């Protein structure tokens, strides 16, 4: 009796798991079919809050207009996501114009936002990609520290940091090799005494609050900068460049998706002013709303959804 009971049970377990494995194998090998009609827009984003919001804005606006959108959030830094788009894994992502020119194309920063956009567009077009319109808002890296630290050290501009004997500076790992970040601090400002602290998953503000670092790479649209707790040193040498956001799209997608695609994306970009972006960043970072909800609210209020 026990034997039969166990045998049946064991057979059932084996059969179920075999069945599950077969089903999963089937679904895994079923490759997505390419339809000639409407191309799928594969939106990717980099790995921080503002990009999540931007990604959701474009994704929801396009979905609202009837496009098929596949969403790949949090792919990684510019260097990683750039490989993703050039290898065709995604075909749309929001990027900062200055990062394209200075960090991807490794060219010198132009002297205006318009020139930066033009140079970025030219660069991307040599690689089968292009840029859609830039946003009004810009978001540059900035040299941030606690206001109390700045007062104690007596510094107002980044150049002032030359007099500090040694200090630690935290940033995302890619900051180490970028002229718009650590490399610029070392080479352009001559701050060779800086010790770089790479951030893996915790934010610069956590480290600043706990006194673990002297200064860090913050973003100019961070909501934390609205108050008086933190301060940014002036970038007199403009190493941080001009950083408006412009969606990078594959030329193939642009031609296949039709004129409505660019229209919608540009309409969204046009509404992204500094004030709007800071408000949305604040809603997510401080008030703990989700990027999807914030994007939905913004699009709805502006009739873009």
């Amino acid at each position, binding site marked *: 009796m026990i034997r039969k009971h166990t045998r049946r049970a064991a057979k059932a377990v084996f059969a179920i798991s075999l069945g599950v494995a077969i089903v999963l194998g089937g679904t895994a090998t079923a490759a997505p079919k390419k339809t000639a009609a409407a191309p799928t827009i594969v939106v990717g984003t980099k790995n921080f809050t503002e990009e999540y919001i931007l990604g959701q804005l474009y994704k929801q606006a396009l979905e609202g207009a009837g496009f098929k959108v596949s969403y790949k959030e949090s792919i990684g830094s510019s260097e990683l996501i750039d490989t993703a788009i050039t*290898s065709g894994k995604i075909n749309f992502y929001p990027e900062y114009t200055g990062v394209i020119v200075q960090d991807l194309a490794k060219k010198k920063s132009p002297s205006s936002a318009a020139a930066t956009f033009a140079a970025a567009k030219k660069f991307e077009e040599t690689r089968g990609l292009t840029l859609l319109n830039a946003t009004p808002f810009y978001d540059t890296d900035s040299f941030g520290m606690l206001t109390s630290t700045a007062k104690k050290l007596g510094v107002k501009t980044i150049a002032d940091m030359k007099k500090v004997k040694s200090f630690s500076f935290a940033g995302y*790992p890619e900051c180490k090799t970028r002229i718009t970040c650590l490399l610029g601090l070392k080479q352009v400002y001559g701050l060779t005494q800086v010790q770089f602290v790479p951030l*893996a998953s*915790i934010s610069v503000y956590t*480290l600043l609050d*706990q006194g673990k670092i002297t200064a860090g790479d913050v973003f100019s649209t961070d909501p934390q900068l609205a108050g008086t707790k933190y301060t940014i040193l002036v970038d007199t040498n403009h190493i941080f460049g001009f950083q408006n956001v412009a969606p990078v799209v594959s030329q193939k997608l642009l031609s296949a998706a039709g004129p409505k695609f660019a229209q919608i994306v540009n309409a969204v970009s046009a509404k992204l002013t500094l004030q709007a972006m800071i408000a949305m960043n604040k809603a997510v970072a401080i008030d703990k709303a989700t990027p999807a909800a914030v994007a939905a609210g913004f699009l709805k209020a502006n009739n873009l959804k």
Partner: protein
Amino acid sequence: MLADQFEPGTFVDAFRFMGHNAGFLLQKSGEHLELSLTALGIALLLSLPLGLWLGHRHRGLFFAVSVSNVGRALPSLVLIAVGLTIFGVGFWNNTAALVVLAVPPILTNAYFAIDGVDRDVVEAARGMGLGELQVLWRVELPLGLPLVIAGIRIAVIFVIATATIAAIAGGGGLGEIIVDQPSYGLSGVVAASLCVSALAFLAALLLSLLLRQMSRRPGPIP
């Protein structure tokens, strides 16, 4: 994503990375061991005596089993994150998390090792007039040593492997390279990962040798 750059050559590149960055890897290995060994030391202090004593008294079976079950159910990422909320960024948030991870295998194995010693042998020892502590130290522990060391071995491997994740919360060590693919490339990740595996294997090997050495000592009193 870096698919077009990945070939079996990445492993060759990993060894080249090791060659170029030997000093850096050694430094990070040192940090890694410092974190791991501190956590293991604290865990041993907390749980080994307790496990041995409970096993000796044959009390607390439920406790020992529960510690093991619950301990396994605590994801290391969660422990690291919670450690961060309690201690802030520093040495202790990661150390505390690793201690919590190391305690269950050490405690549970110590308990079962001593609990499972042949009662007749223990009775004989008591009959010869040995005190409780002597029974534990000279009779039960030598007999239960393999299982005790097995538990420590599991803890050692767990901790060394998990110390990698500590890099997320500023823990340093080889994990710092593994979470930082943008800076060190895939070859760096592979290189650091091989170092972690090597450290874990080495530690396990040392423990096996230690066990063999300790087993060569005179056995329990007949």
